[in-house]
């Protein structure tokens, strides 16, 4: 069994009195697409910065692509690709010049550079735009160039920090095809996202909240562990019904979709039973049907539970 591509033990980072990352222990295997989910400020970026070797952990240790992130940071940097939502491209350079630059920076040998640039252009469908200035590309194309730049040196590990923020749905879908292809070829991918449909496309997920990892597992495992069940119903008095449902102890979450309400219950409680109990008389719903519970439900539930646990009893009661 080969060493995991990422392995951390009790990784923590303090900024003064503030604990940005607390005791994070993770293992990511070769060829995995590993999603890190968490609200803004949960510590996702700080974790990635430590894994990239640009920020020293306050305590704990980590090995990335076989090197210690503290003592062998330079080795780590050479073997990872990194892409952020800002698509850090040089807008006044052409697509090809951007790729050549990053190839040079990442030490792709001069002889190999041309071949690699050609390969990456081909793979990302950028051949026709190689001579275009990066600044004149639309968001989706910029994203492709950014991914091409981040993989120009064929890194075994790729960090993607909200790579699809602000990109249209078609481009996002194509982007994910690329990611899966890379993973299939053996590249390990660690990414952060706020899109829950993307989270479901990861092999495994980690939920981070206030610097701590709350849960790790496949999307199905993570959802199953929350013991949530869902149902949808139709109602002409949706707002009133939603308020009533939210007051029930067994209801975790109610969401509006026009006249349709989506209800998620806790502790494996049967949603149809709960609905029948809460919505009576003039509020009686139409067309109650089971609904799939996904990562988004699990995520919202987990964050709410944690927040409620810290909050005052008044808030928990409301």
């Amino acid at each position, binding site marked *: 069994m080969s060493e995991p591509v990422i392995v951390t033990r009790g990784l923590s980072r303090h900024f003064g009195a503030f604990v940005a990352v607390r005791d994070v222990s993770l293992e990511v295997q070769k060829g995995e697409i590993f999603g890190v989910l968490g609200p803004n400020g949960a510590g996702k970026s700080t974790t990635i910065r430590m894994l990239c070797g640009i920020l020293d952990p306050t305590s704990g240790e980590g090995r990335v692509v076989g090197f210690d992130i503290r003592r062998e940071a330079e080795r780590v940097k050479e073997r990872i690709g990194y892409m952020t939502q800002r698509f*850090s491209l040089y807008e006044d350079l052409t697509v090809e010049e951007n790729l050549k630059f990053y190839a040079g920076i990442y030490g792709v040998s001069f002889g190999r550079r041309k071949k690699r640039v050609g390969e990456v252009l081909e793979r990302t469908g950028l051949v026709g735009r190689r001579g275009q200035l990066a600044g004149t590309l639309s968001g989706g194309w910029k994203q492709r160039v950014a991914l091409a730049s981040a993989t120009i040196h064929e890194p075994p590990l790729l960090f993607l920090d909200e790579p699809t923020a602000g990109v249209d749905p078609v481009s996002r879908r194509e982007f994910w095809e690329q990611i899966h292809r890379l993973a299939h070829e053996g590249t390990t991918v660690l990414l952060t996202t706020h899109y829950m449909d993307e989270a479901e496309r990861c092999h495994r997920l980690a939920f981070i909240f206030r610097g701590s990892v709350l849960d790790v597992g496949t999307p199905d495992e993570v959802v199953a562990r929350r013991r949530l069940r869902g149902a949808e119903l139709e109602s002409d008095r949706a707002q009133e019904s939603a308020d009533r449902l939210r007051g029930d102890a067994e209801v975790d979450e109610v969401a509006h979709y026009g006249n349709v309400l989506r209800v998620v219950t806790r502790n494996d409680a049967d949603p149809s039973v709960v609905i029948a109990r809460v919505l009576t008389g003039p509020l009686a719903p139409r067309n109650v049907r089971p609904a799939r519970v996904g990562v988004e439900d699990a995520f919202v539930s987990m964050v709410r539970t944690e927040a409620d646990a810290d909050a005052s009893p008044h808030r928990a009661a409301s």
Partner: protein
Amino acid sequence: MSFRPFVVAWKELLQLRRDRMTLAMMVALPLLQLLLFGYAINTDVRHMPTLVYDQDRSVASRDFAASLAATGFYDVVGHVGGYAEIEQALRRGQARVALVVPPHYGEKLAAGKPARLQLIVDGSDPQTVASATNTATGMALARSSELMLQRLAASGSGVAFQPLEIEPATWYNPELRTAVYVVPGLVGVILTMTMVMLTAMAVARERERGTLEQLIVSPVRPVELVVGKIAPYVIIGYVQMTIILLAGRLIFHVPFLGSLPLLYALAFVFIAANLAVGLFFSTVARTQQQAMQMSFFFLLPNILLSGFMFPFEGIPRPAQIPALALPLTHFMRIVRAIALKGGGFEDVYGELVWLVCILGILILVSSLRFRKKLL
């Protein structure tokens, strides 16, 4: 040594090539400044508009006024009949100087009695005062000793020569042309201005656009990044220097007496010091605009204190200390010594030591800050 600095420099040159505005500015700026400083700044005051209020109207009075005009410092623009007219003309700026000849001036001179002339000078411009009074006083002195000698000779006392005489000889710039003095110094001013600004902005631009973050994550080391980013600007610095020296020679006939290779070699230390200042600014500035403002703020003391505009000896003592910390102060002396006085290495050695020390401190400070800020 890795090849990464070359990759960074190549990228920087590509970006420069597309940035027509900056490129044009880098060529136009030295030329514009050269013309501006070469033509506009004139510390030798000549052709001051002068009024004459001649109450005597004798041959002697006309003679004195004519010889004043002959010096070239005074242009007689009119004759007036009273102090009121003088006052009005000075107030309106129509005249800067007025010569008042009292009645009976000619008679008194002829009779061997002391005669007095009055010179009124507009003091709102201090530089005019010194020039105007010195020249006129000198003339009057010369005239009186001439008269004295004549009288002594007539009385037959035998001392028919001037007992003491000063023969001034101005070396290195005998015609006292401002351009000769200004152009070599301008090399230093232009280099300070563009080098500091370009480096500060080049790094701030990467920060602003988020590409710096990408570079931090990459294996490129801070020193490789800095060397690669700075190298193209060193070349630009030399191009600007050449433009100024060439144009100064062609347009203003500024001589270059010393060794050109020596100046170019020493300029490297100076350019490097300015780049280090720019680098330091770039670690403080968050945006390109801030970087630009800081560069301009830095330029002002350089122009005022370095000896470019005002002689260093004239700067008050407390201000001389910060002035000595400016790289330009020392480069100013180097460039003038080499270009105007034909100085060699041994003549500018002391200034070079200063420059190297300043450079060392700047590199230390900015690289420490640069490293810290990257993380």
